[in-house]
């Protein structure tokens, strides 16, 4: 009996040790052989600068092994040890957060060991991430859906992701909204109390506008703009929204990136929230030019946008004329008191740039303007390579963000509220699916190697056939729940129609 008790005790101790190892107290075997290279991992987080409030950077080890041991350590605090028989490495949330919080401005080091088929342990060179002292806005709002060409039906939604954890909330899904479409969504200075999302055929077409606690469906079509408004930009004061109104045509290539598109016509309009009125100005709607992608300066005194000369749409496919459509970056002065525009000027011409400008976004401190450069047109994500470029608004110097760009397309970026981070969409993984990437910007405008939005299941991107569109950083969660937003979108009878007012 005594012997059995002893055996049971020994077994229990062994079990506890094994469990403890599994819970993160195990270590590398001492006889592990060094491999002299870092492990291959997916997503590639090695060397990225990360915010101190980001969720754990879970990853897959792409080295075949029977068992993996990972140590995540910093100068301060206890290391996190993970033992896994699967290559999927999931870092526990609480110790990770504690580690990052204690080591702001420091570095986090990740050491990986793996046992091969013979049971021999291999130790890879560790890789490091610098932990920035700058936090990032804690929530990210994006549209997630299958890669969209021309038609859609299922699986489109607007989601809010807490990027400090892995919690994802569905704000709107098109299956609840008659298979309609959502596109551009925008927040006023990264705040969740002033934002809008554009809806198409849900059954109504218009914008779902949230101001304060009130959500209203607004039909922005007026006698001036027959087409509904898109590509929104909130004036920092929160009472104006600049939009582009356009008619787009898609076409397809036989080689390379298949999709392509151009705006047949486009103008900018201004929507005044308190008056529910739409207006424009000759500077924003020149019949001889096409204006798109508005972006406000943080002081609200300038409206930046892209502008290209008009062209003959009947000959656009002759001799590849569409390749000659190139957008300049221009700006126009704005007086919020009178809502008048004046003093249109070119900031960066397409000919000087040697390409076309799209998606301008000014940093919250007003120093930098981040835009996307592509060979032609205004759809950089439909190019084989659309690159992010930083324009120093003080010196007017252009800075190519080599650390950020890939051989594929980048675009649809937004700044964090403190201006130290930006998030952007990139098709770098396979040319089809866009994923949100984050990059840190130092005070001199240097952007760091970006990292993809971490997921609880690190293999998620390897089987997910959806794209993440228009990632927007938000400082707090959106208070309106999915139900309220859905109901507001469906209640056409409670919606309002914007009126056209030549002057405000």
């Amino acid at each position, binding site marked *: 009996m005594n012997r059995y008790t002893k055996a049971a005790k020994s077994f229990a101790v062994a079990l506890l040790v094994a469990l403890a190892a599994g819970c993160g107290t195990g270590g590398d075997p001492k006889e592990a052989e060094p491999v002299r290279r870092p492990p291959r991992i997916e997503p590639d987080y090695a060397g990225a600068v990360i915010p101190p409030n980001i969720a754990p950077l879970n990853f897959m080890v792409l080295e075949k092994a029977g068992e993996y041991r990972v140590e995540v350590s910093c100068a301060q605090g206890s290391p996190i040890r993970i033992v896994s028989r699967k290559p999927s490495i999931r870092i526990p949330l609480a110790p990770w957060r504690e580690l990052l919080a204690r080591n702001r401005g420091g570095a986090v080091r990740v050491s990986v060991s793996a046992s091969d088929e013979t049971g021999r342990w291999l130790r890879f060179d560790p890789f490091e991430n610098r932990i920035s002292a700058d936090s990032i806005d804690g929530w990210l709002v994006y549209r997630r859906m299958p890669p969209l060409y021309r038609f859609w*039906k299922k699986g489109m939604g607007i989601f809010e992701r807490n990027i400090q954890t892995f919690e994802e909330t569905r704000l709107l899904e098109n299956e609840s909204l008659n298979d309609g479409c959502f596109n551009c969504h925008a927040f006023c200075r990264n705040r969740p109390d002033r934002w809008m999302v554009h809806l198409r055929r849900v059954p109504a077409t218009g914008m779902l506008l949230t101001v304060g606690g009130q959500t209203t469906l607004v039909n922005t079509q007026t006698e001036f703009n027959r087409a509904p408004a898109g590509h929104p930009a909130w004036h920092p004061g929160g009472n104006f929204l600049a939009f582009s109104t356009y008619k787009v045509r898609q076409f*397809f*290539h036989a*080689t*390379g990136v*298949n999709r392509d598109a151009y705006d047949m016509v486009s103008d900018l309009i201004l929507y005044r929230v308190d008056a529910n009125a739409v207006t424009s100005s000759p500077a924003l709607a020149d019949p001889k030019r096409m204006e798109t992608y508005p972006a406000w300066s943080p002081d609200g005194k300038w409206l930046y946008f892209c502008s290209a000369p008009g062209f003959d749409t009947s000959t656009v*496919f002759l001799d590849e004329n569409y390749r000659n459509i190139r957008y300049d970056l221009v700006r126009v002065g704005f007086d919020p008191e009178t809502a008048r525009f004046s003093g249109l000027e070119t900031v960066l011409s397409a000919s000087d740039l040697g390409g076309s400008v799209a998606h301008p976004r000014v940093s919250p401190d007003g120093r930098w303007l981040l835009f996307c450069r592509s060979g032609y047109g205004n759809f950089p994500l439909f190019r084989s390579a659309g690159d992010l470029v930083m324009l120093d608004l003080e010196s007017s110097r252009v800075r190519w963000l080599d650390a950020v760009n890939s051989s594929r397309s980048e675009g649809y970026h937004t700044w964090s509220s403190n201006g130290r981070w930006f998030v952007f969409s990139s098709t770098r993984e*396979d040319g*089809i699916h866009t994923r949100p990437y984050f990059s840190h910007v130092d005070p001199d405008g240097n952007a760091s190697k970006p990292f993809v939005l971490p997921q609880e299941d690190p293999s998620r991107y390897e089987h997910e056939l959806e794209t993440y569109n228009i990632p927007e950083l938000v400082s707090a969660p959106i208070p309106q729940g999915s*139900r309220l937003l859905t109901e507001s979108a469906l209640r056409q009878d409670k919606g309002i129609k914007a009126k056209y007012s030549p002057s405000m």
Partner: protein
Amino acid sequence: MMREAAFFILYFLYVWLRINPGLHNQRQDPVFLLDSGFLRDCLLRPSGPAECVSALFTQLFSLPVVGALLVTAAAWLLTRMTCSLIQAIGKGHKPKVAHFLPALLVLMLQSLYTHSFSVTLGALTVVGCILLQVQTGSSVLLRIACFLALGAFSYWAAGAWLLVFGLAASLNEALAHRHRILGLVFLSVTALLPFIAKQAVFVLGARNAYLIGLPFSETYHPRIAPFLFVGFFPVLWLYAGPVAIGRLRLPGAKILKHDWVHFALGTLVLAGLGWCAASVSFNPRMHRLLQVDYDARRERWDAILRVAARDRSDLIQVAHQTNRALFHTGRLLDDMFAYPQIHGTAGLLLPREYGFSAPLQESDFCLDLGSINESRHWAYEALSTAGRTPWILKRCAFVNLAMGDLRAAERCLNMLDRTVFFHAWAVRTRRLAADSALAAKDPAVARARALLPSKDYLSFVGHPPSELDTLIHQHPENRMAFEYRVALDLLDCRLTDLPYHLLRMKTFQVAAIPRHLEEAMIAYWAMLKIRELPAVARLVRPERYQRFREINRVLTDYGGDKQAARAEMERRFGDTFWYYLAYNPTIERLRSQALQERGGLE
């Protein structure tokens, strides 16, 4: 019992051999993934469980015999449960024929290929709930508790079938328990429950909250069938209740007391109802279309040609797939006019609206044609409109693999691993992705890669002739592009390019000029009235000239009256280009064109 067995054997055979559940799978191609996210989404919406199980079962429908077994099993279960229900509310009254009605209604609904099996599963769930409610004892409290629990469950599992449950439960209260107030309460709660669910639990619109899971659609034939199906169960109380308490006396009740008369009459009624249900609901046009589509997806080209020859369909999609089958069997330019070409070029190349409504079929066609990037485009259009169905995932994986976008291919294969039946395909394709030498040996991959465009051009929906010319220019060995280009000219009665087509034909080292091309050339020379035939005329087989002389003779016999000669012409020469040319409205256009371009051949 014997009658029931015979009924369901016939039922099974009808579903298997006539309706063919494989075509439901073809039409619906439902998404079902062994993936926690997918299953969680299913369980978090009303009617989700029924839809999820239905999606799984409909995957099994790809084996028609299994599908027929499942449909029959569900119908049998529904019949048994209905029988029990009638006995429960009719105080032991044993139904003779009435309990078969839901099965017959299922048969009618199942004849519509967009009909979701989840409707039948929803009905099963709710009839089960009604049975439980009816059999709950005499305690009012217990009945209320049971009603609330089963009501909530039926809304979650089967959606708006809850309304049927609620109505049945309130009728049961009012008629069986004589508790009219409780019946009214049950009715009110039933009406409120979807609203409460919409307000407090699920995110869905008001219309959806009250209709989700029910089969109301105008596409059913007859339109009343879904209403009869849904309304059947509450109506049972109006039938079985009075029967049970002896108020309802059916005509001829005395005769019916004889068992054999009863059996014979019941069998006769059942057979008559079965025949009516089958004949009013079956849609042969849709069946044919889906059968052709089903065979095309599985590359059963001979089967398509058999269907096309037998049924002479006027559907444009059938014409398109028939022409595709003719190409794949090497007969397009020899036999295309043996099949209906009433749609002209639209039956050859997919018209715009067809591509939009059937993107995966457009992707298939583009792949055949060597337009790989467009094949990928349409595969992803299909993904956006129909979701992650196995066939769409297969196509996305394959085109990405063929284009060398291995990472994108791997993503699709990883998702395909989560499907029920396509894991093995994913494993095999992953091997091709990992080993370029192996991929190069795979005939499908090798063909697609060999035809990858070397230079960019713009693709437009409908594949205009210029696109086919570009494909041929970049890859003269692209036989499909070539044959379709020739067929396009033949269908358009545009014959001026025939000499160039003949020159291009040398690439393929054919033993003889295809029959329709010979016919077209003879017609062209005849229309131009050239006295001396060009050297190429020697390549045309003598029997072709002989046939042409015969057709002219027939026409002469009718005094040159084409319309009078039409019947005989169709009988003897209906499979020739000449017949198509003579009775095609574009002939006048051709004549003026030929006159303008006279001498083009010399």
